[in-house]
């Protein structure tokens, strides 16, 4: 009898725990996505409703005016293209140099491996703002201020450690036997890398590509330092300036913010499992 009530009580308590746990999760998920939802709401209501006090919680008078204005804005269109070029090229360069270096670090033996990894790690701790003045002077002398090159070069340096770090973690998980077999069959180091490692590592490389792309897409400091020409500015620089371009057009700013964030959110929703494994790979093993 006594034991029966005890288990019932226990079951009751664990059911309550379960409910509390899910309430906690719902609050947590809601808080994470609330700003995006709210700013989306701000972007699709009429001006009158945007300025209504108290604010409406669900949109009542829907208007597509802000979206139409932003999407039709040539500066914003150009900025989206610029962001894609900068992030895309940075990702390709990082993957190219990064995968070669990461392969050597994860597979080959050499004396200064520890030093190399420390140097690479040091960059992730490096306050980027400390070098913007020297770089600005050097880039001016090279004549690449206001060009994609200035930002792509700098982004590459700061994304490369992340790329290498992630790829090393992924490469280490791949079976060594296969490469040894390839080498026994007469393949060179480069061939072993290209024919055996690359196909096997594709998922890890893909994850690394996503993370590198997100880093470069989100970068702001270098773009804001080296690009003062609207023709090359990415969205991260253009959107905060929307406030001054359209003086107080908050609706347009809201729409623009949502437009640049949505692709990232979709990327995250599709690849969440991979991204989490990538983000934690370096941290746990490192």
């Amino acid at each position, binding site marked *: 009898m006594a034991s029966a009530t005890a288990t019932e009580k226990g079951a009751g308590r664990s059911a309550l725990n379960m409910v509390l*746990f899910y309430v906690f*999760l719902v609050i947590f998920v809601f808080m*994470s996505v609330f*700003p*995006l939802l*709210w700013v989306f709401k701000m972007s699709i209501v009429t001006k009158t409703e945007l*300025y209504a006090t*108290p604010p409406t919680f669900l949109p009542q008078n829907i208007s597509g005016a802000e979206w139409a204005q932003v999407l039709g804005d040539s500066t914003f269109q150009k900025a989206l293209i610029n962001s894609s070029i900068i992030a895309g090229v940075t990702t390709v360069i990082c993957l190219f140099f990064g995968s*070669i*270096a990461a392969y*050597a*670090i994860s597979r*080959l*033996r*050499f004396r200064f491996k*520890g030093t190399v*990894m*420390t*140097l690479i*790690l040091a*960059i*992730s*701790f490096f*306050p980027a*703002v*400390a*070098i*913007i*003045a*020297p*770089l*600005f*002077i*050097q880039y001016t002398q090279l004549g690449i201020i206001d060009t994609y090159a200035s930002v792509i*070069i700098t982004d*590459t*340096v*700061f994304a*490369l*450690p992340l790329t*290498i770090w992630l790829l*090393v973690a992924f490469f280490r998980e791949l079976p060594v036997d296969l490469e040894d077999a390839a080498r026994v069959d007469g393949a060179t180091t*480069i061939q072993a890398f290209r024919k055996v490692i690359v196909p096997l590592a594709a998922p890890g490389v893909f994850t690394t590509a996503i993370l590198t792309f*997100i880093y470069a897409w*989100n970068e*702001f*400091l270098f773009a*804001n*330092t080296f690009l003062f020409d609207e023709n090359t500015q990415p969205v*991260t620089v253009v959107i*905060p300036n929307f406030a001054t371009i359209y003086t107080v057009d908050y609706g347009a*700013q809201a729409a623009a*913010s949502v437009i640049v964030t949505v692709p990232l*959110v979709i990327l*995250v*929703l599709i690849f*969440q*499992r991979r991204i*989490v494994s990538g983000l934690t790979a370096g*941290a746990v093993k490192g």
Partner: protein
Amino acid sequence: MTTASTEKKGRGWFKEEFGNPERRAAYYMVLPSLLIIMVVAFFPILYGIVLSLTDSTVTAFGSFVGLENYTEMFQDPDFRVGLFNTVIFTVASVTLEFVIGLAIALAVNRAFRGRGLVRAAILVPWAFPTVISAVMWRLMFQPGIGIFQYLAETIGLVSGPVLSDPALLLIAATLIDVWKTTPFMALLLLAGLQVIPGEVYEAARVDGANVWQRFFRITLPLLKGAILVAVLFRTLDAYRVYDLFWAFGARELQSLSTYVYEGVRISQLQFGPGNAAAVFIFVTAFLIALFFIKVLGMQTSAEE
């Protein structure tokens, strides 16, 4: 794999390293990345140190002036405000993120339905460009249209616009950072938790350890490595805060980084102190990292 390079003691490591084709290949493969990093990151920091000791301008290299720029920097009220804000922001945001992040990590460290959804929700704030999330939050604090400004006024938390009060601006910026980065902190700590084998807890439970004993005697010590890595990363990240302050505060909120930016990129008259501040950030960030590694005993070896 153990090739001809076996025990040629004292014969010079150089010959040994580069005489072996596999090792030579390794150096060729690492070299391009290292060169890029050295040329674009380490060389400029040396150049930056030199600049900070001269009266150079953006366009002309000046003459040696000793520590004059540093003296000027420390006397500049803007720098002091920036330093104060940065330190408060770093300590407050990292502390909150760590405590809340650990609580979340402990809560979700189990199998449950909807894991994927929670994981995705965790990543949403992280994936936002910092500067865009700052713009979004600024919209939500804007007087007249901002939901948070409205709520804060309605419940009597503030009497005026948050965006025009420096102290409230700093508090709001800290909370925004907590919103954006706590999930990421939770993710890193959760990964650390999942490495701890369940048997350890079973054993402790059998021995009669209660929840708190298990937390302080098992979880925290075993999680130390993951905690130090996560906290150091976040500390250095918060310490160089720029995007958030710049966009959320609309240039009204000073940090060390915005001070450097103003100096070297906006007001050309401040170029000298701006460079001094750049070196200051570099050196202090280095000391913070050193503190974590030497004093707190963080593991840095990426090897094995």
